[in-house]
């Protein structure tokens, strides 16, 4: 974040302004990604008129950065009508798309409308890997063509990858592809639970060993020693710090008008079909509660060595059952960085020791389901590491794969 944007964010926080909003226009999608957190059925999307009304309310509330996402935004037949309305209201507009429906004409129109950036989801440089993740044959070729169209219009393109068991081998190849296409590259190391709380897709997460190596790869982190250093002890300032911008200067609105602190934090604070956007922003009791949370209030985290540097996501903590508790995915990242287990991980380890034998057997039974269909693309060692199977546990159940 630039220094000026940081300063503006701090000012927005002081003024109580929702500087940034992600608005998902639809959950429908032409790809069916294996790691996606959404239910793609249409349960009653906002109409064009409702969205235009909402955009006006958001502009009046002071929203500056508007991210239009989905689902696949280009599946809405009124997408460009919505985009034109948003531009007329002088939002800074960012798009998230798989781009498979973008051709020359759409790219030119996005340029004419002054879109700030287009984030395109690409999971590998190899069609057999990318298309297996999206379950849409030809999707990598179409997305790559779209990036070329967008770049030829001088638009800023960000290629967004998600690290998962399916593409462990391809993160460097995907980045090389981004460089070749003139796109920026981001890599998200976390697969998140589905918005309805279903955690089954977490089995796709890369695992501690992969994260350990990734966090020491200086082609991804500029200074590995600094990035992986032992964290300083939390002080009063960190105890009083905010977890992230969710609900403070940023929020999320679903295609059905539901208002959440963040797309990864599905705590319903109201619905813009029933209330004005600004009234929810200012008056929602749930949002006030989210805003009140500080590190010192978090069970476990407040006494954790990682308190001052942890990237704890309050939404993931909420999806884990307690928005005032830890986010285990972030505890695992902190451990992979530093080798120091968090208070939460230590507690889980203690709990595991007291678990009865049947629960352990269930874990072993999970291994074939996690790895069975993936060995051809990622290789056995990585797949086993991803399943968090300790070497000592590599019994016949695992080797029989």
């Amino acid at each position: 974040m630039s220094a000026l944007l940081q300063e503006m964010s701090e000012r927005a926080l002081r003024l109580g302004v929702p500087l940034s909003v992600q608005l998902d226009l639809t959950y429908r999608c032409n790809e069916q990604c294996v790691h996606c957190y959404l239910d793609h059925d249409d349960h009653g999307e906002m109409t064009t008129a409702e969205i235009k009304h909402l955009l006006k309310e958001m502009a009046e509330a002071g929203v500056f950065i508007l991210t239009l996402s989905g689902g696949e935004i280009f599946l809405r037949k009124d997408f460009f009508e919505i985009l034109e309305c948003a531009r007329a209201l002088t939002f800074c507009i960012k798009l998230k798309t798989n781009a498979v429906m973008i051709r020359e004409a759409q790219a030119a129109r996005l340029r004419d409308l002054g879109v700030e950036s287009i984030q395109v989801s690409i999971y590998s440089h190899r069609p057999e890997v990318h298309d297996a993740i999206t379950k849409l044959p030809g999707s990598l070729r179409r997305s790559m063509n779209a990036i070329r169209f967008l770049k030829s219009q001088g638009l800023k393109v960000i290629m967004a990858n998600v690290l998962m068991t399916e593409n462990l081998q391809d993160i460097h190849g995907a980045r090389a592809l981004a460089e070749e296409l003139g796109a920026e590259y981001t890599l998200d190391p976390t697969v998140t639970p589905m918005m309805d709380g279903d955690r089954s897709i977490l089995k796709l997460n890369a695992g501690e060993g992969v994260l350990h190596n990734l966090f020491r790869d200086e082609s991804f982190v500029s200074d590995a020693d600094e990035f992986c250093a032992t964290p300083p002890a939390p002080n009063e300032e960190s105890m009083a710090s905010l977890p992230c911008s969710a609900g403070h200067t940023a929020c999320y609105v679903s295609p059905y008008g539901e208002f959440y602190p963040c797309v990864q934090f599905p705590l319903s604070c109201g619905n813009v079909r029933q209330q004005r956007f600004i009234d929810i922003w200012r008056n929602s009791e749930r949002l006030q509660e989210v805003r009140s949370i500080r590190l010192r209030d978090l069970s476990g985290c407040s006494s954790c060595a990682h308190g001052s540097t942890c990237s704890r996501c309050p939404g993931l903590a909420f999806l884990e059952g307690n928005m005032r508790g830890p986010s285990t995915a972030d505890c695992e990242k902190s451990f992979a960085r530093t080798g120091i287990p968090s208070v939460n991980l230590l507690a889980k380890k203690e709990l595991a020791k007291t678990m009865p034998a049947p629960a352990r057997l269930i874990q072993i039974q999970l291994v074939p389901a996690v790895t069975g269909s993936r060995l051809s693309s990622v290789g056995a060692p990585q797949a086993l590491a991803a399943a968090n199977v300790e070497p000592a546990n590599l019994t016949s159940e695992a080797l029989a794969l």
Partner: protein
Amino acid sequence: MSKKLYVARSPRIAARMLGEEMLVMAGQGSTLFTLNPTATILWQAADGVTPLDQIVESRICSEFEVQPEEAIRDAEALAADLAKHGILLLSQEPIAQVNSSAPVTR
């Protein structure tokens, strides 16, 4: 007598008032600017059809206690600077706006 100078907001610019200042993002290059109150007035009044000297006399001299000649000189320099960053369009003829909406203020 020098020709009139017309100013218009660039249609590719994102803008929003935040407190007393205007946040402006130039789409190409994602460069963020903040405009001070004088520049904000100029930006808001830049409709492409009102000459700059008229904007200065009606909107800036009345708001800030400055002499018109000095204010116009400063405004021309400011307008040129904003145009250099792609925030304003300048012309010696009235400018037809692609997107003529004034930024929403609160």
